[in-house]
């Protein structure tokens, strides 16, 4: 991936926005368990930040995905982990399928306002009974005349308490176990029968609101179907590639910051007559982690190149997602240790990211799900087994 002047400028505008419009408020939002999504996204939409790789016909910039990766990396300069993830839901998790397969009409109604920052979007895949096992979802959408009638519940929905619409995965066929009976449908969250009052209490990512959403005989127009009926599972698997690459890129800067903060802290903190950083075990460890971080960055850029070239990037995106999540856990844990008691304090930056980045091994597909995909792609198991 080649960082041009334009990539750098997009990153610069993003970093400036984060520094001036997000970071000064994060302490409050963390405490309140809520961020003003409409306000923040509207401001980002005005700057053109929400549709970098989306078509110009819906107000996007029509650029290739490498520019989006530059944006994701720059978003990682947030002082906590919740916002990059929540903003990523808007740009890379709830909207790619609509942009790729939605009708022009549906795009104008829901995608264009999401890119302009006038509407907040959510992605509704997981359910109380199905997370990793996406095919096992129970929510149903029955076709009745010109409408779908939707019933079920969705769990852990980011932006869920305030989103205007959700890109919802539901069963549209009778067979509820298969892959070919699922569809993605845009559901406006002010529709009758939607209840989303339950805000969830989380270990980390606290500035981002997460909801349980109940749908009881919710009626939406049939034209809210994204693409073709029955293709929802495939669309969602494709949509996951953007989600996973975005998530990986969005935490690199946070990890870099944790290493630097740790070097600063241990460089000043003295024990046994010298700065902690002077202990070889400490500076070797930090150097090793930094090396791993650069290797991760290279992997993310390689995956990006494949996405830009239009190749199937599933293997590299899954690897990037796995490695970024694993490294985030290893790195924040290792660094927190060197802060001693101060690292255990709620307010320290290392504790913040220790909590917030822990999500990445679970959300967007757990590490084990990534390993399953990677194993299949490498031909170790499954239908394409070659060994």
């Amino acid at each position, binding site marked *: 991936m080649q960082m041009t*002047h*334009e990539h*750098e*400028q*997009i990153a*610069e*505008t993003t970093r*400036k*926005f984060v520094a001036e419009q997000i970071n000064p408020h994060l302490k409050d939002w963390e405490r309140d368990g809520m961020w003003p999504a409409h306000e923040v996204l509207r401001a980002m939409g*005005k*700057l*053109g*930040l929400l549709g*970098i790789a989306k078509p110009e016909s819906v107000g996007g*910039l029509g*650029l290739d995905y490498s520019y989006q990766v530059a944006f994701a990396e720059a978003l990682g300069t947030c002082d906590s982990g919740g916002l990059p993830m929540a903003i990523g839901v808007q740009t890379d998790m709830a909207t790619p399928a609509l942009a790729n397969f939605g009708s022009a009409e549906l795009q104008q109604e829901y995608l264009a306002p999401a890119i302009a920052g006038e509407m907040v979007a959510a992605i509704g895949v997981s359910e109380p009974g199905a997370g990793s096992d996406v095919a096992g979802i129970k929510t149903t959408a029955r076709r009745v005349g010109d409408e779908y009638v939707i019933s079920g519940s969705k769990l852990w929905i980011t932006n869920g308490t305030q989103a205007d619409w959700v890109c919802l995965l539901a069963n549209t066929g009778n067979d509820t176990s298969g892959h070919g009976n699922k569809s993605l449908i845009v559901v406006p969250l002010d529709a009758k029968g939607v209840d989303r009052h339950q805000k969830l209490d989380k270990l980390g990512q606290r500035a981002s609101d997460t909801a349980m959403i109940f749908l009881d005989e919710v009626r939406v127009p049939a034209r809210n179907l994204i693409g073709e009926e029955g293709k929802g599972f495939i669309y969602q698997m494709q949509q996951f590639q953007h989600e996973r690459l975005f998530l990986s890129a969005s935490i690199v800067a946070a990890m870099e910051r944790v290493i630097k903060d740790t070097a600063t802290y241990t460089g000043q903190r003295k024990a046994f007559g010298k700065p902690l950083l002077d202990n070889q075990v400490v500076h070797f460890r930090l150097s090793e982690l930094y090396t791993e971080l650069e290797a991760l960055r290279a992997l993310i850029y390689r995956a990006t190149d494949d996405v830009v070239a239009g190749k199937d990037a599933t293997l590299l995106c899954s690897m990037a997602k796995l490695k970024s999540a694993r490294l985030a856990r290893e790195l924040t844990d290792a660094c927190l240790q060197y802060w001693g008691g101060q690292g255990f304090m709620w307010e320290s930056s290392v504790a913040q990211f220790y909590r917030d980045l822990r999500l990445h091994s679970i959300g967007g597909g757990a590490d084990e799900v990534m390993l399953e995909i990677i194993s299949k792609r490498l031909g170790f198991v499954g239908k394409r087994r070659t060994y």
Partner: protein
Amino acid sequence: MKALVSVKRVVDYNVRIQVKPDGSGVATDGVKMSMNPFDEIAMEEAVRLKEKGVVSEIVAVTVGSAKCVETLRTALAFGADRAIHVVEEGEVQPLVAAKALVAVCGKENPDLFLLGKQAIDDDANQTGQMVAALLDRPQATFASKVEIAGTKATVTREVDAGLQTIEIDLPAVITVDLRLNEPRYLKLPDIMKAKRKPVENTTLGDLGVQAAGGLKIVKTASPAARSKGVMVKTVDELIAGLKNKGLL
């Protein structure tokens, strides 16, 4: 009305400056470079004047290496209509820059020439004044407010004693200070549009300006490291401490 704005590529203000080991200057290899922050303020002012309908065309100009074209692209993203790049790979001292800018003025005949009051790399604070002198036109330095009416500009200047307001005839040179405005965020569509705006290349030679300046840099050194501070608990302790150091 045409506005000319000069912009300089400098080490980003966030970068911790490192002096080269041989003392020949400041390390810039692999270091983040940006538009001089005061020049951003000058650009912003020009764009605001254009939005108000006072200025009809903004031309950005820089004197420096091939890489400075990035700084011009930033100026174009701010809202400059076109740009002029005086390509010079070597060091550009204030008087050389001033002469080059005067030569560009000769071709462009701007009504208003906006510059940052100084560049944050060498903090010379000379170029604007030299340009005005060489052009033999009025200057208003350290502007914190600029109002244009007809062929006159009313400029509020930040001076040691407070604020001074002067009226000058256009064409004039105005150097801008920190509090004049807050530069906008560059919008992504504007960043991409900037790629397609025209940049004209020229050289000091083309402009008839000698590259050599009159200054010789003898040595560059880091400032002495600050010694560790002491926390005092009471005013008495503070006074005693100051007396001890012979400061009171």
